[in-house]
């Protein structure tokens, strides 16, 4: 037994070393940075320890803007993308002809590079001297106003960002939900059919509870993913997100490290710790809620 234990640790060693070097050590380092005041990269010195960094970023309008943007993005995209994916997955599993084709089409955004998708969105939304963008042309057709989605009002920019995020996260969710729906035993549906159950009751009382573990998995990972939103904003609004008022928490962290105003690892670390705390809290809440609604 003792011998086996030693062997087990030996086998775990390579993975353990990698984890320690690339995960645990940086994590501890980030935490240390976040409490060191006025840390200087060049001299590797600091003026002392305390919560000054946290105090600073919590009063930084850019950080507050980033938190607001991120929160808004999370609150809008997670429910909509999950709900839409559920709808599409349910539709996909109810149709027979061309299902494979539709599945492929819906999965395409997943294998497409974020920046390429950004280009497509530019064509759709961006105003240039030559064209107003496809969406504006459509708006004009219905005698709507012309809206600058990329450099215009805040709500327009936020809307484009949310559409973008929803569009890019849906394929994965549809894929997972389709397979979850396919794994529900057909006998449950047959039993419900013999009993004369209407389709909406089948969906709410049988299908949804049966796939609820998958739905909660998607909600939890969806929250985490949306909180870490950054690259999609860059693809739409360029690298100067503060200027566009479209920065996110991860964007703020990046800016603090490498942006124009870069060189502030302490502030970046404090923001990272705060983001971690937020995600942890939300995930714990999610898990508590899911425990009440998932029975197996």
């Amino acid at each position: 037994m003792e011998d086996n234990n030693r062997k087990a640790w030996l086998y775990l060693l390579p993975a353990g070393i990698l984890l320690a070097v690339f995960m645990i050590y940086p994590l501890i380092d980030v935490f240390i940075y976040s409490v060191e005041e006025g840390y200087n990269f060049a001299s590797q010195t600091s003026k002392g320890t305390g919560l000054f960094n946290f105090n600073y970023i919590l009063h930084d309008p850019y950080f507050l803007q980033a938190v607001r943007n991120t929160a808004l993005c999370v609150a809008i995209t997670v429910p909509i993308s999950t709900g839409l994916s559920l709808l599409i997955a349910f539709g996909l599993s109810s149709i027979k002809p061309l299902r494979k084709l539709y599945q492929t089409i819906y999965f395409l955004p997943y294998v497409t590079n974020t920046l390429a998708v950004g280009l497509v969105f530019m064509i759709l939304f961006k105003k240039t001297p030559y064209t107003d963008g496809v969406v504006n042309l459509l708006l004009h057709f219905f005698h709507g106003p012309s809206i600058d989605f990329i450099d215009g009002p805040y709500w327009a920019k936020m809307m484009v960002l949310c559409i973008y995020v929803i569009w890019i996260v849906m394929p994965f969710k549809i894929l997972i939900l389709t397979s979850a729906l396919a794994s529900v035993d057909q006998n449950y549906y047959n039993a419900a059919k013999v009993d004369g159950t209407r389709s909406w009751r089948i969906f709410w009382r049988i299908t949804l509870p049966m796939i609820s573990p998958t739905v909660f998995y998607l909600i939890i990972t969806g929250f985490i993913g949306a909180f870490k939103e950054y690259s999609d904003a860059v693809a739409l609004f360029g690298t100067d997100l503060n200027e566009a008022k479209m920065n996110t928490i991860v964007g703020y962290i990046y800016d603090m490290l490498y942006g124009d105003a870069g060189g502030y690892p302490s502030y970046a670390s404090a923001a990272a710790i705060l983001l971690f705390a937020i995600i942890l809290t939300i995930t714990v809440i999610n898990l508590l809620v899911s425990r009440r609604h998932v029975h197996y």
Partner: protein
Amino acid sequence: MKVTIKDLTKRFPGRTRKDPETIAVNDFDFEIPSGELVGLLGPSGCGKSTTLLMICGLLKPTEGRILFDEEDVTDVPPEERGVGLVFQNYALYPHMTVEQNIMFPLGNLRGKDKLSKEEMKSRALEAAKLVQIDALMDRRPKELSGGQQQRVAIARALVKMPRVLLMDEPLSNLDARLRLQTRVEIRRIQRETGITTIFVTHDQEEAMSISDTIVVMEAGVVQQIGRPQDVYDDPHNLFVAKFLGTPPINVFEGRLQDGKILIGDAEVFDVQDLAPDPAVDFFRTQAGSKEKASADAAGPIYRPGGVKTGPGRLAKEAGNIPVWVGIRPEGFYMDDNGPLTCTLKGVEVMGRDVTVVSTHPAFQGETIRTIIDAKSGVDPSKGEVRYRLRQGKVFVFDQSSGERLYGA
């Protein structure tokens, strides 16, 4: 509720255009009297489950009609047929409690049939009491044993008071002891409710023990329909004879010669002692099927595809006909001068009687198993055992068609 099945046929198209279509059920014709417990019996793939699903309405027949009493339900969707179906794996909703599971069908009722929550609860309790599961109403299916899940499934099928109860392999997921207990239970519930019940099984013992009538099927074709004892005592063909009974019937290669049955060179039986196959009367009964139906108290006798053999033909060919001779295990008795000599392999003591295991060159299969009274005293040290055969336990089958020529 009387269930009438008329010329029921189900064909499944082949996977590709070149593939032949599969005939799952071929020309099934049967009338189930109200309040009977009928067992559809056959090996897997014989079409029994397909038949059940068609009666239930989940599958559409290719041809034929299904009638509940006088009402044609062939094109009626399952939910309007008033059937309760118990699935082989029970299909209990795992996220609902026992009570919610049983109540689920009631929640589907609409319009004037709509029930209040209290009514639903009391109906569910009633059904649960019938299957003796009322103490476990708050459990989830996962927290129940297999037998308890089975009861919940039956309660759920019964709660909406179906006109016909259908069960797909109701006992196959239970262990042997529970199976015995549950089949008695199913019989009791069926008697108490008086609901016409059709169940599917591949276990002949199960079907024989609780059914009023059994339907033996093979390759989509009904082989025989009748009371369990009648089918056992009077199998119409080799398949039915082999399928019913444990240990199974012993089949020998033999000949019919001058009114005698020969196995090897031994004259084991005189045909005169054997009644001809009653199905020889088949054509007559077909013509006057109405009188037949009323006169035949022993249950319907059914033969697919008509009978090709009869005493007339046999008389003509009396010279030398190759046949299969089927002898039930209990159809042997020991006699030192008996005509059938077998090589003794061993004796298995069962208590009340013994199983004698032996071999014979003309035997089709590994070993002959015969059930002998324990008092007859087999001497295992002797190398051979001699048998005489009992009347009513010997059947003669045509070698090409498998139809029975003589026996019983």
